[in-house]
């Protein structure tokens, strides 16, 4: 089995890194600083696309899990894709939290605000950490597939409920609001919205590249122990004969 990635993945990777380089220029140089927040607002160009990427990744995990559960479309690839995508999603959820915290400090005056979005994202992070831990309990797709797919779907349905309940809680005690809870940015001119849209585009390319590499790696890893054992036995038999 070849261990190399395909040409398509390489092109995707090149496109992702070129556009991320361009994003750095747009976000740091071309786009103007925000009137109220100054340069701190530039964090938006990584914070927002990181959050977008996390949601996209978990959505892909949910779709792949459904495809695994439907008997007609069941295939190892869907299980591996669900896992690969969830891993990337967890990394970018963590990144979203860290970047949001860094942005919140100069803007809200605190590292952490019990805002509905922040709280939901934190719960989301732990839900999918649990999912990844569950995935490690089975060595092959056959062993872990169904339980992981169901766990992924429960997590996916749970997130809107968590968000709704926290939002509701928040609207009931509005008097606690001291700081502007939204990282509100008034878009001005052309470059700010353009940079943000371009950032989402660049991060989506990055996601596609990462998920393909991770999926390839998972395919190689799938059943590796059994394969290697068989190879070793075959070698051993060949020696004794």
């Amino acid at each position: 089995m070849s261990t190399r990635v395909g040409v398509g993945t390489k092109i995707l990777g090149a496109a992702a890194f070129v556009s991320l380089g361009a994003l750095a220029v747009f976000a740091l140089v071309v786009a103007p600083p925000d009137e109220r927040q100054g340069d701190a607002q530039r964090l938006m160009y990584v914070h927002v696309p990181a959050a977008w990427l996390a949601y996209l990744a978990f959505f892909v995990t949910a779709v792949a899990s459904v495809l695994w559960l439907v008997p007609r479309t069941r295939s190892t690839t869907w299980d591996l894709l669900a896992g690969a995508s969830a891993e990337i999603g967890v990394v970018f959820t963590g990144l979203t939290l860290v970047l949001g915290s860094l942005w919140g400090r100069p803007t809200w005056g605190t590292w952490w605000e019990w805002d509905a979005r922040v709280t939901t994202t934190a719960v989301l992070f732990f839900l999918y950490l649990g999912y990844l831990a569950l995935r490690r309990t089975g060595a092959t797709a056959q062993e872990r597939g169904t339980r992981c797919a169901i766990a992924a779907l429960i997590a996916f349905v749970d997130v809107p409920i968590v968000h709704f309940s926290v939002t509701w809680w928040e609207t009931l005690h509005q008097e606690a609001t001291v700081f502007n809870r939204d990282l509100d940015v008034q878009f001005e001119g052309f470059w700010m919205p353009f940079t943000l849209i371009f950032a989402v585009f660049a991060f989506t390319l990055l996601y596609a590249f990462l998920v393909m590499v991770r999926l390839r790696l998972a395919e190689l890893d799938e059943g590796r122990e059994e394969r290697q054992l068989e190879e070793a036995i075959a070698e051993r038999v060949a020696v004794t004969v």
Partner: protein
Amino acid sequence: MNMFREALLVAGKDLRIEARSRVALQQIVPFGGIVLIVFAFALDPDRGLLPRVAPGLFWTAVLLASLLSITRSFSIEEANGARDGLRLSGLDGGAIFLGKAAAVALQLLLLEVVLGFGVVVLYDVSVRGVVLIACTTVVATVALAATGTVYGVLAAGLRARETLVPLLVLPAVTPVVLGGTRAFEAALAGAPSDGWPWVQLLAAFAVLAVVAGVLAFGPLLEEDS
């Protein structure tokens, strides 16, 4: 045999095992009790903080103890190939889920009554809005038991299940803790109208968890592990 009679059979089996082994009574209820005392150590009873945060502490204690109930509910299926027995019994997967969740829910209700007395006595809480408190307790318990039972079977038979179940269950039931706490606060503050919307949220969560469990339990039980 219809689904509910099958569920009753499974619930009866689990409760009979409990009645003979007394694990919930002799281990899980005392665990909840010591958690209440630990909270008092952490928050210093003299500062007057305890009565104000009692609803949150109550639900946190219930949640921690429920993790033990869930793990216990599936560890009794591990010995003597009981899990294979369940699969061979011909009972419907959804019915097995309902039965096991009902048994967990009943044990949790007992635990909640004991912890409720504990909170009133130890934290100096004066009880108001009994109807709201009772409804919140029942609905939240169904939600907790159903969610926990789904995750319990997800992790059943795995080597790392004792550590996996808490990590899976706690983030998933955050809305239950939030809703239960807010509804209790509203009841104790004498403003039950603020609490009923939370009961509705808990009810919606409970219905979703039960439906998810009934649908998912069959395929999960059939999984080899």
